[in-house]
Protein backbone atom coordinates (compact mmCIF):
# COMPACT_ATOMS: atom_id res chain seq x y z
CA UNK A 1 0.00 0.00 0.00
CA UNK A 2 1.43 3.38 -0.86
CA UNK A 3 2.00 5.95 1.92
CA UNK A 4 -0.84 8.27 0.89
CA UNK A 5 -3.39 5.47 1.06
CA UNK A 6 -1.95 4.24 4.33
CA UNK A 7 -2.35 7.72 5.77
CA UNK A 8 -5.95 8.02 4.58
CA UNK A 9 -6.75 4.63 6.07
CA UNK A 10 -5.19 5.66 9.38
CA UNK A 11 -7.18 8.92 9.46
CA UNK A 12 -10.44 7.08 8.80
CA UNK A 13 -9.63 4.47 11.44
CA UNK A 14 -8.88 7.17 14.03
CA UNK A 15 -12.00 9.19 13.24
CA UNK A 16 -14.19 6.09 13.42
CA UNK A 17 -12.62 4.94 16.68
CA UNK A 18 -13.10 8.38 18.20
CA UNK A 19 -16.70 8.54 17.05
CA UNK A 20 -17.44 5.03 18.28
CA UNK A 21 -15.98 5.96 21.66
CA UNK A 22 -18.06 9.13 21.86
CA UNK A 23 -21.25 7.29 20.87
CA UNK A 24 -20.52 4.52 23.37
CA UNK A 25 -20.06 7.05 26.19
CA UNK A 26 -23.23 8.93 25.23
CA UNK A 27 -25.28 5.74 25.09
CA UNK A 28 -23.82 4.56 28.38
CA UNK A 29 -24.75 7.86 30.02
CA UNK A 30 -28.25 7.67 28.57
CA UNK A 31 -28.80 3.97 29.21
CA UNK A 32 -31.45 4.58 31.86
CA UNK A 33 -33.45 6.67 29.38
CA UNK A 34 -33.04 4.24 26.51
CA UNK A 35 -34.50 1.38 28.54
CA UNK A 36 -38.10 1.16 27.45
CA UNK A 37 -39.44 0.10 30.83
CA UNK A 38 -38.67 -0.24 34.52
CA UNK A 39 -38.64 -3.70 36.06
CA UNK A 40 -40.73 -4.64 39.13
CA UNK A 41 -37.44 -5.10 40.96
CA UNK A 42 -36.60 -1.41 40.40
CA UNK A 43 -40.06 -0.36 41.61
CA UNK A 44 -39.69 -2.38 44.80
CA UNK A 45 -36.22 -0.89 45.34
CA UNK A 46 -37.70 2.60 44.94
CA UNK A 47 -35.73 3.44 41.79
CA UNK A 48 -38.84 4.11 39.71
CA UNK A 49 -40.55 7.51 39.87
CA UNK A 50 -43.84 7.71 41.81
CA UNK A 51 -46.86 9.52 40.28
CA UNK A 52 -45.06 10.07 36.99
CA UNK A 53 -45.82 8.45 33.66
CA UNK A 54 -43.52 5.54 32.93
CA UNK A 55 -43.50 2.03 31.57
CA UNK A 56 -43.33 -1.11 33.67
CA UNK A 57 -42.40 -4.48 32.17
CA UNK A 58 -42.45 -8.01 33.54
CA UNK A 59 -44.13 -11.41 33.60
CA UNK A 60 -47.79 -11.76 34.53
CA UNK A 61 -47.85 -13.94 37.65
CA UNK A 62 -49.77 -17.20 37.13
CA UNK A 63 -53.16 -17.13 38.82
CA UNK A 64 -52.98 -13.44 39.70
CA UNK A 65 -55.35 -12.09 37.03
CA UNK A 66 -58.64 -10.83 38.54
CA UNK A 67 -61.35 -9.52 36.23
CA UNK A 68 -64.33 -7.44 37.29
CA UNK A 69 -67.62 -9.07 36.30
CA UNK A 70 -69.37 -5.83 35.30
CA UNK A 71 -66.61 -3.81 33.61
CA UNK A 72 -63.32 -4.12 31.73
CA UNK A 73 -61.33 -3.54 34.89
CA UNK A 74 -58.58 -6.07 35.45
CA UNK A 75 -55.91 -6.48 38.08
CA UNK A 76 -52.81 -8.64 37.93
CA UNK A 77 -49.33 -8.94 39.40
CA UNK A 78 -46.15 -8.34 37.41
CA UNK A 79 -42.89 -9.98 38.42
CA UNK A 80 -39.30 -10.33 37.27
CA UNK A 81 -38.75 -13.07 39.91
CA UNK A 82 -37.00 -10.54 42.14
CA UNK A 83 -39.84 -8.15 42.88
CA UNK A 84 -43.61 -8.05 42.30
CA UNK A 85 -45.89 -5.10 41.56
CA UNK A 86 -49.69 -5.07 41.32
CA UNK A 87 -51.12 -3.49 38.16
CA UNK A 88 -54.67 -2.22 37.60
CA UNK A 89 -55.96 -1.58 34.11
CA UNK A 90 -59.25 -0.84 32.42
CA UNK A 91 -59.60 -1.66 28.77
CA UNK A 92 -59.07 -4.34 26.17
CA UNK A 93 -55.97 -6.45 26.63
CA UNK A 94 -53.90 -7.56 23.59
CA UNK A 95 -54.42 -11.09 22.25
CA UNK A 96 -51.09 -12.29 23.53
CA UNK A 97 -51.86 -11.23 27.11
CA UNK A 98 -51.90 -14.33 29.27
CA UNK A 99 -50.56 -15.56 32.56
CA UNK A 100 -46.86 -16.33 32.45
CA UNK A 101 -46.39 -14.03 29.44
CA UNK A 102 -44.25 -10.88 29.38
CA UNK A 103 -46.01 -7.51 29.03
CA UNK A 104 -45.13 -3.82 29.11
CA UNK A 105 -47.64 -1.47 30.76
CA UNK A 106 -47.75 2.32 30.49
CA UNK A 107 -49.11 4.36 33.37
CA UNK A 108 -48.09 5.62 36.78
CA UNK A 109 -47.43 4.31 40.26
CA UNK A 110 -49.83 5.68 42.83
CA UNK A 111 -48.82 6.39 46.41
CA UNK A 112 -49.85 2.85 47.47
CA UNK A 113 -47.28 1.45 45.00
CA UNK A 114 -50.04 0.06 42.80
CA UNK A 115 -49.43 0.66 39.10
CA UNK A 116 -52.36 2.32 37.31
CA UNK A 117 -51.94 1.35 33.67
CA UNK A 118 -53.68 2.99 30.73
CA UNK A 119 -51.96 0.95 28.02
CA UNK A 120 -50.87 -2.69 28.07
CA UNK A 121 -48.58 -4.11 25.36
CA UNK A 122 -47.75 -7.79 25.07
CA UNK A 123 -44.12 -8.79 24.69
CA UNK A 124 -43.35 -12.07 23.00
CA UNK A 125 -40.09 -13.93 23.28
CA UNK A 126 -37.70 -15.17 20.64
CA UNK A 127 -38.94 -18.77 20.79
CA UNK A 128 -41.23 -20.10 18.11
CA UNK A 129 -42.74 -23.57 17.97
CA UNK A 130 -45.71 -25.35 16.45
CA UNK A 131 -48.71 -25.79 18.79
CA UNK A 132 -48.46 -29.59 18.80
CA UNK A 133 -44.93 -29.49 20.15
CA UNK A 134 -45.88 -26.95 22.79
CA UNK A 135 -48.81 -29.15 23.90
CA UNK A 136 -46.56 -32.20 24.04
CA UNK A 137 -44.01 -30.28 26.11
CA UNK A 138 -46.74 -29.18 28.49
CA UNK A 139 -47.99 -32.75 28.90
CA UNK A 140 -44.54 -34.08 29.73
CA UNK A 141 -43.85 -31.28 32.21
CA UNK A 142 -47.26 -31.81 33.84
CA UNK A 143 -46.63 -35.53 34.05
CA UNK A 144 -43.27 -34.88 35.66
CA UNK A 145 -44.79 -32.40 38.10
CA UNK A 146 -47.61 -34.84 38.91
CA UNK A 147 -45.16 -37.58 39.76
CA UNK A 148 -43.26 -35.29 42.08
CA UNK A 149 -46.34 -34.01 43.81
CA UNK A 150 -47.88 -37.43 44.41
CA UNK A 151 -47.76 -38.28 48.10
CA UNK A 152 -46.04 -41.49 49.04
Amino acid at each position, binding site marked *: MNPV*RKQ*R*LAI*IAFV*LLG*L*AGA*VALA*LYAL*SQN*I*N*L*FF*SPDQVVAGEAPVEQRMRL*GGMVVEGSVLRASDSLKVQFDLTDYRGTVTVQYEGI*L*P*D*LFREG*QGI*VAMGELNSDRVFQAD*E*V*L*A*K*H*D*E*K*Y*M*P*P*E*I*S*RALERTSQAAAGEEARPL
Partner: protein
Amino acid sequence: MWTRFKRWFHQWGSPKGFYERSQRWGFWLGLAALILIPAGLVWGLLFAPQDYQQGHSFRIIYFHVPAAMLAQSAYVFMAVAGLVVLVWRMKVAEMMLKSAAPIGATFCFLALFTGAVWGKPTWGTWWVWDARLTSMLILLFLYMGVIALYGAIRDRQIAGRAASVLVLVGVINIPIIKYSVEWWNTLHQPATFKLTEKPAMPVEMWAPLALCALGIYACFAYCLLLRTRNEILEREKRTLWVRKLLTKEVESGV
Protein backbone atom coordinates in the same frame (compact mmCIF):
# COMPACT_ATOMS: atom_id res chain seq x y z
CA MET B 1 -3.48 -16.88 -4.53
CA TRP B 2 -2.88 -13.24 -3.63
CA THR B 3 -1.87 -12.31 -7.17
CA ARG B 4 -4.96 -14.05 -8.52
CA PHE B 5 -7.16 -12.17 -6.09
CA LYS B 6 -5.44 -8.94 -7.07
CA ARG B 7 -5.99 -9.59 -10.77
CA TRP B 8 -9.65 -10.48 -10.13
CA PHE B 9 -10.05 -7.32 -8.06
CA HIS B 10 -8.56 -5.14 -10.79
CA GLN B 11 -10.72 -6.72 -13.47
CA TRP B 12 -13.90 -6.05 -11.49
CA GLY B 13 -12.56 -2.68 -10.42
CA SER B 14 -12.48 -1.18 -13.90
CA PRO B 15 -15.84 0.03 -15.25
CA LYS B 16 -15.39 -1.85 -18.52
CA GLY B 17 -14.34 -5.07 -16.79
CA PHE B 18 -17.24 -4.80 -14.38
CA TYR B 19 -19.72 -4.24 -17.19
CA GLU B 20 -18.49 -7.22 -19.18
CA ARG B 21 -18.28 -9.61 -16.25
CA SER B 22 -21.51 -8.63 -14.53
CA GLN B 23 -23.87 -9.72 -17.30
CA ARG B 24 -23.52 -13.44 -16.72
CA TRP B 25 -23.54 -13.02 -12.92
CA GLY B 26 -26.64 -10.88 -13.14
CA PHE B 27 -28.50 -13.59 -15.00
CA TRP B 28 -27.76 -16.32 -12.43
CA LEU B 29 -28.41 -14.08 -9.44
CA GLY B 30 -31.73 -12.94 -10.90
CA LEU B 31 -32.69 -16.55 -11.58
CA ALA B 32 -31.75 -17.57 -8.03
CA ALA B 33 -33.88 -14.78 -6.56
CA LEU B 34 -36.77 -15.69 -8.84
CA ILE B 35 -36.72 -19.30 -7.61
CA LEU B 36 -35.75 -18.86 -3.94
CA ILE B 37 -38.11 -16.06 -2.89
CA PRO B 38 -41.38 -17.58 -4.20
CA ALA B 39 -40.34 -21.04 -2.96
CA GLY B 40 -39.52 -19.74 0.52
CA LEU B 41 -42.65 -17.58 0.72
CA VAL B 42 -45.04 -20.29 -0.44
CA TRP B 43 -43.46 -22.81 1.94
CA GLY B 44 -43.42 -20.37 4.83
CA LEU B 45 -46.87 -18.82 4.32
CA LEU B 46 -48.81 -21.95 3.40
CA PHE B 47 -47.03 -25.05 4.70
CA ALA B 48 -44.92 -24.14 7.72
CA PRO B 49 -46.67 -24.83 11.06
CA GLN B 50 -48.23 -21.92 12.94
CA ASP B 51 -46.76 -20.63 16.17
CA TYR B 52 -48.12 -21.81 19.55
CA GLN B 53 -48.49 -18.25 20.85
CA GLN B 54 -48.94 -16.00 17.85
CA GLY B 55 -50.83 -18.32 15.52
CA HIS B 56 -50.66 -17.36 11.88
CA SER B 57 -49.52 -13.78 12.40
CA PHE B 58 -45.96 -14.96 13.07
CA ARG B 59 -45.68 -15.80 9.34
CA ILE B 60 -44.79 -12.20 8.60
CA ILE B 61 -41.35 -13.26 9.89
CA TYR B 62 -40.74 -14.76 6.45
CA PHE B 63 -40.55 -11.30 4.98
CA HIS B 64 -39.73 -9.12 7.96
CA VAL B 65 -36.53 -10.85 9.06
CA PRO B 66 -34.91 -11.21 5.59
CA ALA B 67 -35.73 -7.57 4.82
CA ALA B 68 -34.23 -6.38 8.11
CA MET B 69 -31.14 -8.54 7.63
CA LEU B 70 -30.64 -7.19 4.16
CA ALA B 71 -31.16 -3.57 5.19
CA GLN B 72 -28.26 -3.94 7.63
CA SER B 73 -26.02 -6.02 5.36
CA ALA B 74 -26.50 -3.59 2.49
CA TYR B 75 -25.39 -0.79 4.78
CA VAL B 76 -22.26 -2.69 5.82
CA PHE B 77 -21.58 -3.33 2.14
CA MET B 78 -21.93 0.40 1.45
CA ALA B 79 -19.55 1.19 4.30
CA VAL B 80 -16.92 -1.14 2.84
CA ALA B 81 -17.44 0.50 -0.55
CA GLY B 82 -17.16 3.91 1.11
CA LEU B 83 -13.84 2.93 2.68
CA VAL B 84 -12.54 1.78 -0.71
CA VAL B 85 -13.68 5.08 -2.23
CA LEU B 86 -11.94 7.20 0.39
CA VAL B 87 -8.71 5.24 0.55
CA TRP B 88 -8.25 3.82 -2.95
CA ARG B 89 -10.44 6.28 -4.92
CA MET B 90 -12.01 3.45 -6.88
CA LYS B 91 -14.70 4.56 -9.30
CA VAL B 92 -16.66 1.31 -9.42
CA ALA B 93 -16.88 1.13 -5.62
CA GLU B 94 -18.40 4.60 -5.63
CA MET B 95 -20.93 3.64 -8.30
CA MET B 96 -21.86 0.52 -6.30
CA LEU B 97 -22.32 2.61 -3.16
CA LYS B 98 -24.63 4.95 -5.01
CA SER B 99 -26.55 2.05 -6.56
CA ALA B 100 -26.95 0.18 -3.28
CA ALA B 101 -28.47 3.07 -1.31
CA PRO B 102 -32.03 3.05 -2.75
CA ILE B 103 -32.22 -0.76 -2.57
CA GLY B 104 -31.12 -0.79 1.05
CA ALA B 105 -33.52 2.05 1.87
CA THR B 106 -36.40 0.13 0.28
CA PHE B 107 -35.76 -2.99 2.33
CA CYS B 108 -35.24 -0.92 5.47
CA PHE B 109 -38.63 0.69 4.94
CA LEU B 110 -40.22 -2.69 4.27
CA ALA B 111 -38.69 -4.12 7.46
CA LEU B 112 -40.10 -1.22 9.48
CA PHE B 113 -43.48 -1.47 7.77
CA THR B 114 -43.89 -5.23 8.15
CA GLY B 115 -42.69 -4.87 11.73
CA ALA B 116 -45.46 -2.36 12.42
CA VAL B 117 -48.04 -4.65 10.82
CA TRP B 118 -46.74 -7.49 13.00
CA GLY B 119 -46.62 -5.31 16.11
CA LYS B 120 -50.29 -4.36 15.98
CA PRO B 121 -51.73 -7.87 16.51
CA THR B 122 -48.95 -9.24 18.76
CA TRP B 123 -47.88 -6.31 20.93
CA GLY B 124 -51.00 -4.22 20.58
CA THR B 125 -49.30 -1.20 19.02
CA TRP B 126 -47.95 -0.16 15.63
CA TRP B 127 -44.95 1.65 16.99
CA VAL B 128 -43.08 2.09 20.24
CA TRP B 129 -39.92 4.11 20.79
CA ASP B 130 -37.77 1.26 21.99
CA ALA B 131 -34.08 0.95 21.16
CA ARG B 132 -34.43 -1.59 18.33
CA LEU B 133 -37.18 0.24 16.46
CA THR B 134 -35.59 3.65 16.92
CA SER B 135 -32.13 2.56 15.76
CA MET B 136 -33.71 0.90 12.71
CA LEU B 137 -35.52 4.17 11.93
CA ILE B 138 -32.16 5.97 12.16
CA LEU B 139 -30.81 3.48 9.62
CA LEU B 140 -33.61 4.50 7.24
CA PHE B 141 -32.72 8.17 7.76
CA LEU B 142 -29.05 7.39 7.07
CA TYR B 143 -30.04 5.74 3.80
CA MET B 144 -32.15 8.76 2.90
CA GLY B 145 -29.25 11.03 3.84
CA VAL B 146 -26.96 9.21 1.41
CA ILE B 147 -29.54 9.46 -1.37
CA ALA B 148 -30.13 13.15 -0.59
CA LEU B 149 -26.40 13.92 -0.59
CA TYR B 150 -26.08 12.42 -4.05
CA GLY B 151 -29.04 14.47 -5.19
CA ALA B 152 -27.74 17.69 -3.67
CA ILE B 153 -24.15 17.70 -4.95
CA ARG B 154 -23.65 18.06 -8.63
CA ASP B 155 -19.96 17.21 -8.80
CA ARG B 156 -19.82 13.42 -8.85
CA GLN B 157 -16.47 13.06 -7.18
CA ILE B 158 -17.38 15.33 -4.28
CA ALA B 159 -20.80 13.72 -3.95
CA GLY B 160 -19.20 10.27 -3.82
CA ARG B 161 -16.73 11.27 -1.13
CA ALA B 162 -19.32 13.11 0.96
CA ALA B 163 -21.63 10.08 0.80
CA SER B 164 -18.73 7.79 1.74
CA VAL B 165 -17.99 9.86 4.83
CA LEU B 166 -21.66 9.80 5.85
CA VAL B 167 -21.91 6.04 5.31
CA LEU B 168 -18.76 5.39 7.34
CA VAL B 169 -19.91 7.54 10.23
CA GLY B 170 -23.31 5.85 10.21
CA VAL B 171 -21.85 2.36 10.33
CA ILE B 172 -21.60 2.80 14.12
CA ASN B 173 -25.38 2.39 14.14
CA ILE B 174 -25.16 -1.20 12.87
CA PRO B 175 -23.81 -2.82 16.07
CA ILE B 176 -26.26 -0.65 18.01
CA ILE B 177 -29.17 -2.16 16.02
CA LYS B 178 -27.78 -5.65 16.46
CA TYR B 179 -27.21 -5.47 20.22
CA SER B 180 -30.01 -3.03 21.14
CA VAL B 181 -32.20 -5.93 22.30
CA GLU B 182 -29.46 -7.17 24.64
CA TRP B 183 -28.12 -3.89 26.02
CA TRP B 184 -31.46 -2.34 26.92
CA ASN B 185 -35.00 -3.33 27.89
CA THR B 186 -36.96 -3.33 24.67
CA LEU B 187 -40.40 -4.43 23.54
CA HIS B 188 -38.78 -6.18 20.58
CA GLN B 189 -37.74 -9.74 21.46
CA PRO B 190 -34.08 -10.82 21.37
CA ALA B 191 -32.57 -12.59 18.38
CA THR B 192 -33.94 -16.05 17.54
CA PHE B 193 -30.84 -16.95 15.55
CA LYS B 194 -27.38 -16.71 17.07
CA LEU B 195 -24.13 -17.92 15.60
CA THR B 196 -23.13 -19.76 18.75
CA GLU B 197 -26.42 -21.40 19.67
CA LYS B 198 -29.09 -23.57 18.13
CA PRO B 199 -31.98 -21.50 16.73
CA ALA B 200 -34.94 -21.09 19.11
CA MET B 201 -37.19 -22.40 16.35
CA PRO B 202 -37.71 -25.88 14.83
CA VAL B 203 -36.27 -26.67 11.42
CA GLU B 204 -39.66 -26.78 9.64
CA MET B 205 -40.08 -23.13 10.61
CA TRP B 206 -36.60 -21.80 9.87
CA ALA B 207 -35.90 -23.70 6.63
CA PRO B 208 -38.33 -21.54 4.58
CA LEU B 209 -36.93 -18.49 6.36
CA ALA B 210 -33.43 -19.44 5.21
CA LEU B 211 -34.70 -19.75 1.62
CA CYS B 212 -36.32 -16.31 1.79
CA ALA B 213 -33.15 -14.79 3.25
CA LEU B 214 -30.93 -16.30 0.55
CA GLY B 215 -33.42 -15.20 -2.09
CA ILE B 216 -33.47 -11.63 -0.82
CA TYR B 217 -29.67 -11.50 -0.83
CA ALA B 218 -29.66 -12.76 -4.43
CA CYS B 219 -32.31 -10.17 -5.28
CA PHE B 220 -30.18 -7.42 -3.73
CA ALA B 221 -27.07 -8.55 -5.65
CA TYR B 222 -29.08 -8.70 -8.87
CA CYS B 223 -30.57 -5.22 -8.46
CA LEU B 224 -27.16 -3.89 -7.43
CA LEU B 225 -25.49 -5.26 -10.58
CA LEU B 226 -28.24 -3.89 -12.82
CA ARG B 227 -28.11 -0.43 -11.27
CA THR B 228 -24.32 -0.33 -11.29
CA ARG B 229 -24.26 -1.34 -14.98
CA ASN B 230 -26.62 1.53 -15.74
CA GLU B 231 -24.47 3.91 -13.74
CA ILE B 232 -21.37 2.76 -15.64
CA LEU B 233 -23.01 3.35 -19.02
CA GLU B 234 -24.21 6.77 -17.90
CA ARG B 235 -20.82 7.92 -16.60
CA GLU B 236 -18.67 6.33 -19.26
CA LYS B 237 -20.87 7.32 -22.16
CA ARG B 238 -18.09 9.39 -23.69
CA THR B 239 -15.56 6.56 -23.68
CA LEU B 240 -14.82 4.59 -26.78
CA TRP B 241 -15.93 1.21 -25.46
CA VAL B 242 -19.41 2.40 -24.46
CA ARG B 243 -19.92 4.13 -27.81
CA LYS B 244 -18.84 1.00 -29.64
CA LEU B 245 -21.12 -1.13 -27.49
CA LEU B 246 -24.11 1.13 -28.04
CA THR B 247 -23.67 1.45 -31.81
CA LYS B 248 -23.29 -2.32 -32.03
CA GLU B 249 -26.54 -2.81 -30.15
CA VAL B 250 -28.35 -0.25 -32.30
CA GLU B 251 -27.12 -1.91 -35.47
CA SER B 252 -28.16 -5.36 -34.33
CA GLY B 253 -31.60 -3.96 -33.52
CA VAL B 254 -31.58 -4.50 -29.72
